[in-house]
C-alpha cells in the first residue's frame, strides 16, 4: 500500500464528492419517488417525474465520474494515494487497554481508482440507457433512487480503507440489489428472487464477519494497512482460515459455487440493473476483495489454490448450463457466473493484475451484451404489444433474424460476442489469455505448485484449473455464438406481424451501446502482453505494481513464460475459440426450429442442463424444506409448547397457591391480588419514606 502523502483539503473534498454526489442523487430521487407515490394515492394516473428524475439520476453519476477522472489525473501525475479521514466511526476498548478506532477513512489509490472509474463510467452509460428503458415505468424516480444509492455504496466498497467500511458498501450494494431485483414487486417471483439474493449473499457475509473476527483477534486492527501488517506474526494455518472465510464472502457476492444460486434469479430485475449490478460492478466485488486482501492470500498458497479451484469449477459448471438456456438474460447470467469464475482463477493463482484486467474488460463487453439484450427485449416487447400478441420477449426461440430489423444492435452484439469468446484483438481476448497464461506459468513451477490443497498437490490443482479454463473457453464460444445466432441470424420464428414490429434502438437506448462497443474493441490495449506489442505493453500491470507487485511475486517469483510457450497457449486459445464458433455454426440449425409456444422441454442431459442441474430444487428439498419443517413441527409445535407448558405448569402450581391464599383473604381474582401486592409495596415505601 502506498503511504499516503499530504492529502489536501481539495482532495478531501473531491473524495467526499465522489461518494456524496450519488448519495445525494439517491436522496433527491427518493424524495421524488415518495412524493409521486403520495400523489398517486388520490390521483392514480399521475405521471412519473421523468425529466427531473433522470436529470438528478444521470447527472449525479456523471458528475461523480468527472470527479473520479479528476482524482485519477492527479494520481497519474505522480501524486500518492489520496486518503481522506472523515471522523471516527467505531470506538471501543480492548484487553490491551488500547482504544482502537475504526475511522471513516477512504482511500483513492491505484486499485480503487480503476474500480471507481469503471463504476462511475460504465455506471453513467447504464444510467443513460435506463432513461430510455424505464421511460414509461410508473416507478421511474424510485428506480433512479435505488440505482444512485447502489453507485454510492459501490464506491464506499472500493474506497473504504478498512474491512468494516468495505463491509458497509458490501452489504449496502446487497440491499440495493435486493430492492432492484424486486423492483417490479407486483409479481411475487421477482420479490422472491430479491430475497433469495439477499439471503444467499448473507451466507457469504458470515464468512466476511468471521474473517474480521480472526483478523481483529490476532492483529488488533481492521484497517487494511494495520491488519495486513499484523499478518507477519501469524501461523499459516490461521492465515489460511482467514483466507477461506474471505473466500466464502467473495463466493457469495461474486456468485461462485455453491453460492451462485441467486444470480440467475436476479435477472428478474430490469435489464439495465442486470448490466450494472449483476455483470459489471457488484458481482466483481469478490474479485476486488481478493486483490485488496492479496497480502492474506499471498501468505497462504492453500487459500489461493482454493480460490482458483472454486473459480475453475464455477466457470465450467455455469458455462455448461448456459449451453441450454432459452431466456436471453439467463444465458448472460450463467455466462457472468462463468466469467467471474475466470476472474477467480486469475486472482487465485496470484495473477492479480490479470484478474482486475478481466474484471474491467468484462465490465465493458458484458454490460454491452446486457444492454444489447435489453434493447432486443424492449423492441420485442413493443412488437408484441403492437401486434396484440402474447409471447415471451426474452425467449431466444421467439427471436431469430433480428439483425435485419436491428442492424446497429446486432452488429454491436456480435462484437461483444466475439470479445467474450476471445477473438483478437478484442478486449476479452487479451484479458482471458493473460489468465490462462498465468495459470500455466504457475503450474510449471511456483510456490503455488509446491503447496497442496486437501491432499492434492498444487501442481495437479493448477493443471485441473487450466483444463477447466480451456474447456470453459470452448463452451463460452459455443453458447455465446448460439445466443447471437438464435437472436440475430436465420429466419424469424415469431409471427410476421411481430417481426415487422421490431425496430432498432435509437437515442438513449443506442449510444451507450456504441460507447461500450468502442471500449470493447479498445479495452485490450489497457494491458497488452509483451508477446503482442501493438502498443504500450503492460500499462495496467505497471499501474497496479505498487499495490499487488510484491504479493504477485510471492506466489510466482518468475514472472514470464518463455515466449515460445506463451505463443503456444495464446495460439491454442484462439484456435479453441474458433473451434467453438464452428461447433455452434454446425449445430445452429438443429437448435430451436420452433418458437417457445411449440417447444417441448428438453430431455436427458440436455434437459438437465436446461433445468440447471436441478440444483435449486435439490436445495429446496434437501435443506430449506427440512429446516422449515423442523422449525415448524419440532421447535414450534413441540418444543416451544412443551417449554411453555412446563413453565406455566410450574407457574400454575404457584398460581393455585396464590389463589388459595387469595381465597383465604376473600380476594377473588388475580387482578385484585396484583393490586394488593402493588399497593402494599407502594404503601410500605411511602410509610418508610415518611419516617425517614
Amino acid at each position, binding site marked *: 500500500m502506498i503511504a499516503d502523502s499530504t492529502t489536501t483539503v481539495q482532495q478531501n473534498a473531491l473524495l467526499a464528492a465522489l461518494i456524496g454526489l450519488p448519495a445525494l442523487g439517491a436522496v433527491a430521487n*427518493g424524495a421524488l419517488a*415518495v412524493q409521486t407515490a403520495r400523489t398517486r*394515492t388520490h390521483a392514480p394516473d399521475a405521471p412519473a417525474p421523468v425529466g427531473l428524475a433522470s436529470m438528478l439520476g444521470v447527472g449525479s453519476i456523471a458528475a461523480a465520474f468527472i470527479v473520479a477522472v479528476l482524482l485519477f489525473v492527479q494520481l497519474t501525475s505522480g501524486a500518492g494515494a489520496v486518503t481522506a479521514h472523515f*471522523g*471516527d*466511526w*467505531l*470506538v*471501543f*476498548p*480492548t*484487553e490491551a*487497554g*488500547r*482504544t*482502537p*478506532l475504526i475511522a471513516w477513512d477512504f482511500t483513492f489509490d491505484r486499485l480503487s481508482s480503476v474500480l471507481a472509474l469503471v463504476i462511475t463510467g460504465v455506471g453513467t452509460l447504464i444510467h443513460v440507457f435506463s432513461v430510455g428503458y424505464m421511460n414509461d415505468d410508473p416507478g421511474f424516480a424510485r428506480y433512479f433512487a435505488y440505482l444512485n444509492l447502489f453507485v454510492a455504496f459501490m464506491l464506499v466498497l472500493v474506497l473504504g480503507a478498512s474491512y468494516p467500511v468495505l*463491509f*458497509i458498501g*458490501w*452489504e*449496502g450494494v446487497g*440491499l440495493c440489489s*435486493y430492492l432492484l431485483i424486486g423492483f417490479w*414487486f*407486483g409479481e411475487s417471483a421477482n*420479490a422472491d428472487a430479491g*430475497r433469495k439474493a*439477499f*439471503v444467499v449473499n*448473507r451466507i457469504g*457475509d*458470515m464468512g466476511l*464477519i*468471521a474473517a474480521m*473476527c480472526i483478523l481483529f*483477534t490476532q492483529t488488533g486492527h481492521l484497517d487494511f494497512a494495520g491488519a495486513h501488517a499484523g499478518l507477519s506474526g501469524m501461523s499459516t494455518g490461521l492465515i489460511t482460515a482467514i483466507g477461506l472465510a474471505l473466500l466464502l464472502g467473495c463466493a457469495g457476492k461474486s456468485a461462485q459455487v455453491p453460492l451462485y444460486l441467486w444470480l440467475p434469479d436476479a435477472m428478474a430485475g430490469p435489464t439495465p440493473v442486470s448490466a450494472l449490478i449483476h455483470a459489471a460492478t457488484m458481482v466483481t466485488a469478490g474479485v476486488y476483495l481478493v486483490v485488496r486482501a492479496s497480502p492474506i492470500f499471498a501468505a497462504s498458497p492453500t487459500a489461493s489454490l482454493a480460490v482458483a479451484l472454486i473459480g475453475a469449477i464455477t466457470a465450467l459448471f455455469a458455462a455448461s448450463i448456459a449451453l441450454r438456456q432459452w431466456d436471453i438474460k439467463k444465458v448472460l447470467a450463467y455466462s457472468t457466473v462463468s466469467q467471474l469464475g475466470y476472474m477467480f482463477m486469475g486472482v487465485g493463482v496470484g495473477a492479480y493484475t490479470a484478474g482486475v484486467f478481466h474484471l474491467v474488460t468484462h465490465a465493458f463487453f458484458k454490460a454491452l451484451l446486457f444492454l444489447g439484450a435489453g434493447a432486443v427485449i424492449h423492441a420485442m416487447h413493443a412488437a408484441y404489444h403492437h401486434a396484440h400478441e402474447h409471447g415471451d420477449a426474452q425467449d431466444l426461440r421467439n427471436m431469430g433474424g433480428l439483425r435485419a430489423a436491428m442492424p446497429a444492435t446486432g452488429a454491436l452484439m456480435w462484437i461483444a460476442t466475439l470479445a467474450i469468446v476471445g477473438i483478437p484483438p478484442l478486449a476479452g481476448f487479451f484479458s482471458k489469455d493473460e489468465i490462462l497464461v498465468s495459470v500455466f506459468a504457475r503450474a510449471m513451477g511456483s510456490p503455488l505448485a509446491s503447496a497442496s490443497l486437501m491432499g492434492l498437490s498444487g501442481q495437479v490443482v493448477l493443471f485441473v484449473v487450466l483444463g477447466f479454463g480451456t474447456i470453459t473457453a470452448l463452451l463460452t464460444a459455443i453458447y455465446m455464438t448460439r445466443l447471437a445466432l438464435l437472436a440475430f441470424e436465420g429466419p424469424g420464428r415469431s409471427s410476421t406481424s411481430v417481426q415487422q414490429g421490431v425496430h432498432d434502438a435509437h437515442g438513449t437506448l443506442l449510444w451507450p451501446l456504441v460507447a461500450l462497443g468502442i471500449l470493447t474493441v479498445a479495452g485490450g490495449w489497457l494491458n497488452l502482453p509483451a508477446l503482442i506489442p501493438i502498443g504500450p505493453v503492460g500499462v495496467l500491470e505497471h499501474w497496479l505494481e505498487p499495490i499487488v507487485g510484491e504479493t504477485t511475486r510471492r506466489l510466482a517469483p518468475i514472472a514470464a513464460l518463455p515466449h515460445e510457450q506463451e505463443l503456444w497457449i495464446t495460439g491454442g486459445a484462439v484456435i479453441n475459440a474458433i473451434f467453438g464458433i464452428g461447433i455452434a455454426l454446425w449445430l445452429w440449425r438443429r437448435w430451436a426450429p420452433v418458437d417457445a409456444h411449440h417447444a417441448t422441454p428438453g430431455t436427458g442431459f440436455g434437459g438437465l442442463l436446461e433445468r440447471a442441474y436441478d440444483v435449486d430444487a435439490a436445495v429446496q428439498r434437501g435443506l430449506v424444506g427440512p*429446516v*422449515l419443517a*423442523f*422449525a*415448524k413441527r419440532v*421447535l*414450534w409445535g413441540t418444543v*416451544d409448547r412443551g417449554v*411453555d407448558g412446563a*413453565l*406455566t405448569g410450574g*407457574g400454575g402450581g404457584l*398460581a393455585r397457591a*396464590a389463589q388459595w391464599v387469595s381465597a383465604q383473604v376473600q380476594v377473588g381474582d*388475580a*387482578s385484585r391480588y*396484583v393490586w394488593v*401486592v*402493588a399497593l402494599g*409495596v407502594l404503601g410500605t415505601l411511602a410509610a418508610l*419514606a415518611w*419516617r*425517614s
Partner: protein
Amino acid sequence: MSAAVLLVALVAWPLIGAALIAVLGRSGEGDSSSGIDARTLALGVFGLEAVLAIVLAVSVHATGSAWLATADAAWIPEIGARFSLGADSFALVMVVMSALVLPFSLLATWNEVAKRRPAYFACLSAVASGLMGVFLARDLLLFYVAWELLLIPMYFVVGVWGGTAAPRAALKYFIVTTLGSLLMLVAVVYVWNAAGGISFAYDALAAARMSDAAARWCLAAFLLAFLVKAPLLPLHSWLPDAQREAPTMGALALGLKVSTFAIARVALPLFPAAALAEPMRGTIVALAVAGIIYGALLAVVQPDLKRLVSYASISHVGLVLLALFAFTPTGAQGAMLLMINLGITTSALFILVGIVGAQRGTFAIESLGGVATQAPLLATAFIIVTMSAIGLPATNGFIGELLSFLGSWRVYPVPTLVAIVGVVLAAVYLLSAMQRVVFTASADVRPFRDLDLRQSIAMGAFVLAIVWLGIGSAPMMRMLAPAAERIAARQLPEGRVNFQGDGPVALGTEGAR
C-alpha cells in the same frame, strides 16, 4: 439545576405524572367529564421526562469519577437503605434512550388505546419511573423497589388493555417474573446480612464477605430474575404471549433491555468472582447462543407479525448475553450498544407492526400487504427499520452486532460462529415478513392510510436515530468505553479497572490511534 435534582426528578416525575394523569386526565373523545385529554397529559409527562434526560446528558461532564452525577439522601436508616442514585455513562445513555423512545412511541400510537386512557397512561408512567429507577439506583433495596415498579403496572397494561387472550398472557407474565424477583429478594436480604446488615449500597454489598458457594447461589438468584425477564431460553415463552397481547407501548416497553442492564450493573459486580464459575457461565452462554438460533427459527415460521418481532427479540437478546458473558471490553461495548439500539429498533418495529395491524384488524402475515403502493412513507419507514433490525452496516443495528462478534470471538469462537449464523436467519424472517406486508398486493380492497402527521414525526425521529447512530456514534462510544472496561471486569462504576494500570479513561479522552 444540579445534577442531583435532575436524577431525583427523573425517577420521581413519572410517578407524580402518573398521579396527575390518573386524577386530571379524561379519556378523550366521547368523554364528557371535565379534565384534560389523558394523551396530552401523558405526552407532557413523557416530554418533560425526555427534556430532563437531555438536560442531564448535556450538563454532566468529566468528574474524574465514573459517576457523572449522583444523588444521595437518607431513606430507611434502621436498615441502612438510602435513596441513592447515580448515572455513569452507560446508565446515562440508557436513560436518554428510554426517555426519548416513550414520547415518540406515544405520538405514533396516539389513537391505539381507547378505553380508560387515564389509567392506561398512569400505568405506563409508573413503568417509566421503574425504568429510571433500575437504571439509576445505587442502592439495592431501591433497585428492588424500582424493579417491582417496572413489573407490576405492566401486568395491567398487558391484562387490561391487551387483546382477547390478554388475561392469561398477563397472568403468565406476572407469575413468572414475580417468581424470579421473589428469589432475588431472598438473595438481596442474604447479601445485605452478609455485609453486616448496615447498608444496601452497591459498593458496600460488593465488599461483603461470602463463601464461594453462597456467592454463586446469590448470583444465580439474581440472574434468574433478570434472565427470566430478558428472556433467556427456555424461560422465554411468556414474552411472545405478553407482547402479542399487549398494546404497542406495552409491547415495546417489555422489549427495552432493562434486564441485561441489570445483569451488567447489579448481578455481575456484586459477585465478580462467582460470575466466572462454571457450569453457570458456560450454561448461560450455551443457552444464549441456542436462543439466537431458536428465536430466529421460530420467527421464520411465525404466522403472526407481532409474535415474529417478539421471537426476533429473543434471538437478539442471545447475542447481548453472549457478548456480556464473554467479559471482554470489546464485547461489553458491543453488548451496551446492542441494548441501546435494540431498544430503539424493536420499539420502531412494534410501532410499525401496530400501525399496520390496527388498520387491518389482524396481525396475520398472510392477510397483510399492499403498503408499498398505498402508503409510501410507511413503506419507507418499514424498509429502513427492517434493515436496522437485520443489522445492515451504517444502521444502528450493525455497530453493536459487529463489536459483540469481535469481542466474543476471543473467548468463545465457536459460539460466536453460531451467533453469526443467526445473522443470516435474521435476513430470512425479516425480509419475508417485510415482503409480505410491504410489497405483496393485498386481497383487502380497503385503502391503506399512510402515516399521519404524528406518526410521521415519530417515525422520522426513529429513522433519524437509526441512521445517525449507525454513522455518528463515535462520541457516544468514546464515552461508553470506560464503562465497557468496568463491565468486562465486572466492576461497579466506583471500582478501579484492572485492564490497565492508570484507572478508567476519563470522559472525552482521545483513544490511542
